């Protein structure tokens, strides 16, 4: 059989790779490479689940692997690719609040902070160190997804942010709390729906949240008038 230390080494390597993929999502400007990074990340997630299955022999993990590969490695990137072709956006180089380099530094800081805060809390559970590391990286990935959400301007990259967050949750789940399989399935259905809706909406508009809010801004007119009357 494969030794435990080898499995642990593999897990560590996969975790490092998954962090790198998240950092790629923060920094890449080419939309297509963003999709590829996301697919890669999901694939890494599936590998982690496989390794964990080898270690623990839980059948749910295999289901997770199958679902992840089908939905996140194949279907979602495919959909997103179609959307990207339709709206023909090649690059998303617009950032707000935080530039990519700063985002990378912030993410590293976040991983350290979350490790410092959560590791003592999680030690109460009867798990080994590698599991704690995995779940900490899961939480950090949720944060990195959030950073992608607010620092990018295009809708299509925002969606990638949400998907990263979801991956973080799954990572946390397979390492620590073992989400019931049914819930995991529903979550995946949900994000499939999110991607579909985004796809449909992206066709109808010029693919930036600002334009979607143009008609909302007419509401602001009302406030401005009141301001002027004061």
């Amino acid at each position, binding site marked *: 059989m494969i030794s435990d230390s080898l499995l642990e080494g593999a897990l560590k390597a996969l975790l490092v790779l998954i962090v790198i993929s998240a950092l790629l999502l923060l920094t890449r400007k080419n939309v297509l490479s963003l999709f590829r990074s996301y697919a890669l990340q999901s694939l890494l997630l599936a590998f982690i689940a496989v390794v964990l299955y080898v270690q623990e022999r839980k059948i749910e993990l295999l289901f997770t692997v199958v679902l992840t590969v089908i939905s996140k490695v194949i279907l979602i990137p495919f959909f997103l690719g179609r959307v990207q072709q339709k709206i023909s956006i090649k690059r998303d180089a617009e950032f707000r*609040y935080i530039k990519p380099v700063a985002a990378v530094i912030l993410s590293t800081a976040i991983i350290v902070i979350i490790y*410092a*805060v959560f590791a003592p809390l999680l030690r109460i559970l009867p798990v080994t160190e590698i599991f704690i590391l995995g779940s900490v990286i899961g939480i950090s990935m949720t944060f990195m997804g*959030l*950073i992608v959400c*607010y620092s990018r301007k295009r809708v299509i990259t925002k969606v990638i942010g949400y998907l990263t967050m979801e991956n973080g949750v799954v990572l946390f789940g397979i390492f620590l709390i073992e989400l019931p399989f049914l819930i995991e399935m529903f979550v995946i259905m949900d994000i499939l729906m999110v991607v579909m809706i985004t796809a449909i909406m992206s066709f109808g508009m010029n693919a930036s*949240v600002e334009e979607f809010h143009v008609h909302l801004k007419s509401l602001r007119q009302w406030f401005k008038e009141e301001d002027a009357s004061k």
Partner: protein
Amino acid sequence: MINITLDMLFILATFLLLLAALYTLLFLTKKSKIVRGVSLSVALLANAILILISSSIVYSGTALEFNFNQIFPMMGMDFLIDRLAAFFILAVSIIAAAVTVYSFHYLDHYPQTRRKNIHIFLMNLFVLSMVYVVASRNMISFLIFWELMSVSSFFLVCFEFEKAETRKAGLFYFIMTQLSTVFLICAFVILYNETGSFELARASEMSSGLLSMAFISLFIGFGIKAGIIPFHKWLPYAHPAAPSNISALMSGLMIKVALYGLIRFLLYIFPATYLWWGILILIAGTVSAFLGVIYALKEHDLKRLLAYHSIENVGIILMGIGMCVIFTSYGLTALAMISLVAALFHTLNHGLFKSLLFLTAGSVISETRTRNIEEMGGLVKRMPKTAVLFFIGAVSISALPPFNGFVSEFLLFHSLFQSSLIPDPIVQLIMLVCLTVLALTSALAAACFVKAFGTVFLAAPRSEHAAQAKEASWSMVAGPSLLAALCIGLGVFSFQIFSWIGPRIGYSFPLPDMLPAVSVGAVLLLMIVIGFRLTDSRKPRVSETWGCGINSQNSKMEYTASGFSQPIINIFSFIYQPQKINKRYFMDIQETVFREGKVEIRMVRFFEDYVYLPIARTVQRISRWLYSQQNEVTLDPFIFYEFLAILGLILLVGVIV
């Protein structure tokens, strides 16, 4: 025969009041005065029943208990009317009765029918809510009726809402009154946490820190409503804006309900009271009394002047409460009782004469159509009855014997004089200082009412409207007359009343018997008047005062209110801090061609400029910043804030764990 018990009668009376209120709503658009007349008559009947019930409870001391738990289950609708509550209900119903009589004709000079009917509805509701606040035995029902009282009075203040000034006053009042409720709720929550029940009953032992916290927030909550300086600012805004009958109710009753709350909690709910509470209350009372009268002196708006006097008198009542707490903490129960009775009696008295003054001021204002006393004058010949009534009120509030104001302030002075019985020299010193300030306050109040009565009623009219004023209609004289009669009666017969009540509550009160002196004086006066009438055969001669040789004299030559108060303002200029603003603007940079100038003398509005406005500006700045943050209607900022908030939370967890 049906056995009618007191509690059934009480419920019946309040039900009548509710009915009277709802009746006007039924006929909201009816122009006829009969609708309001019927409603007011029913309300009057209800108030009469309430007077009977509450006076019988004050007399016998047997408490009345009832609840509405069958109608409103789980709402804590428990009521208990003991002697203290009955005393306040007595005050409420007497004054409400007088105001009801007054309101028969007061609203006639307003054209809006629907608004007048709503006014009557709200007024009855207002009185009803005050009765039930006082009767409440449970914090929940206390708060419910407290809020009903606040909201109905807010709408009553906004009667003339088309005026910007009224809207501002109403908003100011509403914010302050909500603030007061917030503090009350804080205190109630603290008490509930400690005792586990919302019942207004003696709380079990609790830690002194929490108890003091509950006291402070109750003191602020009730203080805002009662108009204690520095929470007083809504009074001088709301009273001039409100119709006069509402000013009378608010100043005469509502601020007393707040004081009732304070007394109830201090004496009946808190398991213990501390010395520093008493000193705090005493000093707050002294400051309110002194500054109230100081601000009243410079005021030329009749109703605002009266509003400042309300602040002064609330201060005097608070001094009594504070003394009561101080004496209790030294174990001097007899003196504590005298201070408390002084406070309670002054509460009733102030309610009587302040409502009297507001009502008569309302008659004057509706005739002269101005609130500025510099435009009145000469009304004693045109409105003689109103003038006499106002005079009685003015003398009572100035605490001159033999009127009722004198009696309660006398009791308060008496208890302040007993400071020598207190072992702690610092407390003694504080009480002596308060005593002197109170003496000064009384003198200044008298000066202020000399000014008010003199400028409003004496000399020649200073404006067209004042010259054409006519006597108010019968109900607007009858309502105040009731109050005036009580002002005199409670003063002249005070010795008899207290020697009758004293044994019932087990204390004797050191009061002079004013009846002989007054009767001798009255007989003498009568004899002099009759003597003059009999011996005087000449016809009255009409002529002008000598005017230093000037042919035609006009009202411009009269002694003005500003002139009268000027010396006092000079003396206290360190408080008023008058600022002289002298600004010149020029057409050119070299400052040779004069364009315009601005000269102004104004008093520093200390609390507004240094307390209220800085707080308001800070809040405004924060909200403007938040507004500008939210104004961007995009998703990203909100995700960003969420990110920051979650990260902050995690850091917080890290720090705590």
